[in-house]
């Protein structure tokens, strides 16, 4: 067992993977039923919850079999009542709770193992690789949406408006002109007021240099870039074992993140209320809200991660110059979210 790397630590059996899978399954199964309106058999959900409980509470074999039979009979008999109870939203909520609970436990177990000194330098490197490649996968997720925006703006819309050798424009969308931001959809160009898919009244794009100082996305950019800097200050502080500056700078980062999200939410309110800019206002609305929305969701996740790290430091005194992986990973994620924003700022707002 002794190696040049110290001990290889192979964890004992773990219930976490199975429980997390069941939680994840119920979440997406519920979401699917909810969105599609398809009624599914309550037995599916009941069996999943049953296995979850049996695994979680370590039921003996006899208890599992007896309870399983009873569960099966009861669920089959009360199928109708249960289907009214276990609706899509309900299953989604149950699954989401279970999933979140398992993941919370999973992370706390990993943290405890680390504090107990079970993690070898090699395992710590594995965590670093894992986080790095996870961020790369996130980059590729955003790449799909940036790619869609690029393709639509530079290729699809001009073709739709008759550029190139196609005949579609004359036959399908006569009178459509390619512009970005796309305020007049092909549907509007052809059907006028009878159009189903209408464009926004106003866009979020940058207009003139004079209005820069009153322009919300500009301030959002300043705030988010600043938060990246403060996050780096926190990082430098913990590398010097300076607990207090670490807590302060990390706290400032989180406050900036919250301000960013508030402003972003405010921007959405303005878009929906005053600008007629919604998800269903053609391709402009679609790309605008999907790009900024997924970015916002990632900011939310990043803020949550940073907040957990802050509480760990303030309440429990975790992290030192030697061992700060949890914070490091959250900070990399934060810088990644920042870089995506810079891409968004130029592609969606400035040159939007």
């Amino acid at each position, binding site marked *: 067992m002794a*190696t040049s790397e110290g001990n290889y630590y192979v964890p004992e059996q773990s*219930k976490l993977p199975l429980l997390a899978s*069941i939680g994840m399954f119920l979440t997406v199964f519920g979401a699917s039923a909810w969105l*599609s309106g*398809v009624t599914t058999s309550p037995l599916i959900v009941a069996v999943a919850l049953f296995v979850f409980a049996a695994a979680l509470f370590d039921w003996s074999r006899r208890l599992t079999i007896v309870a399983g039979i009873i569960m099966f009979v009861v669920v089959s008999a009360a199928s109708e009542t249960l289907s009214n109870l276990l609706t899509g939203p309900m299953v989604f909520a149950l699954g989401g709770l279970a999933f979140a609970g398992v993941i919370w436990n999973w992370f706390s177990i990993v943290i405890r193992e680390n504090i107990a000194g079970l993690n070898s330098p090699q395992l710590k490197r594995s965590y670093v690789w894992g986080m790095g490649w996870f961020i790369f996968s996130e980059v590729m997720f955003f790449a799909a949406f940036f790619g869609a925006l690029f393709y639509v703006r530079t290729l699809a819309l001009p073709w739709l408006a008759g550029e190139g050798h196609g005949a579609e424009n004359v036959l399908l969308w006569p009178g459509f002109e390619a512009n970005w931001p796309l305020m007049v959809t092909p549907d509007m160009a052809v059907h006028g007021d009878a159009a189903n898919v209408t464009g926004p009244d106003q866009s979020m794009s940058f207009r003139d240099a004079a209005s820069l100082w009153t322009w919300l996305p500009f301030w959002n950019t300043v705030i988010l870039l600043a938060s990246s800097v403060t996050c780096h200050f926190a990082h430098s502080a913990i590398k010097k074992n300076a607990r207090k500056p670490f807590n302060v700078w990390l706290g400032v980062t989180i406050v900036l993140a919250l301000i960013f999200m508030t402003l972003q939410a405010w921007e959405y309110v303005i878009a929906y209320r005053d600008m007629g800019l919604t998800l269903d206002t053609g391709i402009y609305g679609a790309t605008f809200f999907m790009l900024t929305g997924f970015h916002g969701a990632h900011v939310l996740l990043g803020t949550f991660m940073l907040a957990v790290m802050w509480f760990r430091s303030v309440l429990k005194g975790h992290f030192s110059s030697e061992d700060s992986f949890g914070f490091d990973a959250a900070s990399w994620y934060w810088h990644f979210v920042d870089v995506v924003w810079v891409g968004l700022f130029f592609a969606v707002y400035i040159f939007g």
Partner: protein
Amino acid sequence: MAHGPAKGLSRWLFTTNHKDIGSMYLWFSFAMFIIGGIFALVIRAELFEPGMQIVDPNFFNQMTTLHGLIMVFGAIMPAFVGLANWMLPMMIGAPDMALPRMNNWSFWILPFAFFMLLSTLFMPGGAPNFGWTFYAPLSTTYAPESVTFFIFAVHIMGASSIMGAINIVATILNMRAPGMTLMKMPLFVWTWLITAYLLIAVMPVLAGLVTMMLMDIHFGTSFFDAAGGGDPVLFQHIFWFFGHPEVYIMILPAFGIISAIIPTFARKPLFGYSSMVYASASIAFLSFIVWAHHMFTVGMPIAGELFFMYATMLIAVPTGVKVFNWVATMFRGAMTFETPMLFSIAFVILFTIGGLSGLMLAIAPADFQYHDTYFVVAHFHYVLVPGALFSIIAAVYYWLPKWTGRMYNEILGKTHFWVAFVGLNVTFFPMHFAGLAGMPRRIPDYHMMFADWNMISSVGAFIFGASQILFLYIVLDTIFRGKKATDRVWENSEGLEWTVASPAPYHTFSTPPEIK
């Protein structure tokens, strides 16, 4: 670390052991292979004769869709991940995978994802019926209600793939025994490293794509709707940006397996090891810049057609290097023809046929004739069945004695090979002719002129299907009744996995081995 496996069901449910997880992946993959195979036989039964016989057209479409999805995501990919789980730690001298709990999570997501996908068969409107490529607007505007379940199933199986791939990268880059430098790694490890990179790069793109579908269907966006300024062709671009690397995800590990088996039975070292590594990396790079060759007929500027045509033909170079190296390895070798070797030689020959028909399809002007015909079906089945699938079967025969400590029955193994070999060629070779004559894909009924070739294909398909039942029997027979295998198993087997006992102990290499 003396402890062995836990007792009872919990061993499998809660395991963190790479060998247990590898076994579960392989059995799961086999189950999916049988289900996807049954769907294929429904298709072939319907196509046995012209006219509508057995199923209605909508159900036929559901079968073609699910057959493709199940085979790609449920059978081939998990089988390779299972082999990676079993073999990578042993090949690089590591005690286990880098992140053992996440490893088990990657596996356990799959049964749920495929349960969800298959449950759509019983929903109102039926299962997805828009083909495994699920082009919009068939999969959005005109999709059955169950499409939402399909979307979320793809989401979670993608999450499983990404986690599995991250684990593999971390294992290979971080868990090698001291002295196992990158250029000493067996090729199966190399090809999996590159495959894992491809997976992490393209599975999120697929996730983004199905998310756009979800938004178009339920939240009023217009990504794939021209009325709002979107474009259905956008769907195809994003899909194939994922889809083409995906094709190599299903063949690169196969290259690694064949590169392990041929030297063993030719009793010569692999010819051109480093060129194999560079060829694999080149193939991976090229896979990102050829996607639109799936879309030559959709409408593209001539410059685009030319770029994607030449880039695609370029892939023949590194692939040719590989085929040349395998042949050169066998050249003047002291060859014997045990079952894994038979499957490997068939791989080299038949995969090359699939590769050459791929070159034909790469030529844009010719593709206008072949597009969406059975010629395409013949092409990709020649790369996936005697390619990916044969390599997996070869790997099972090759390493089964190491896994179980018992030898399979050679006569039965060879029988399996020959029946499968004949069945597969009888099934898929005539599809070239039917396709060149103009028979379209994905139709339940066809013109009388295609009747003969289709009848032959259907007979072949049932022969091929039956041979897989024999495969199951052989594996079970080996596990329960096989003769004891030696540690080295084969006369000229090289690599760390052959230095441990057969069956491989539950925990191997808790002390790193010495690498020469």
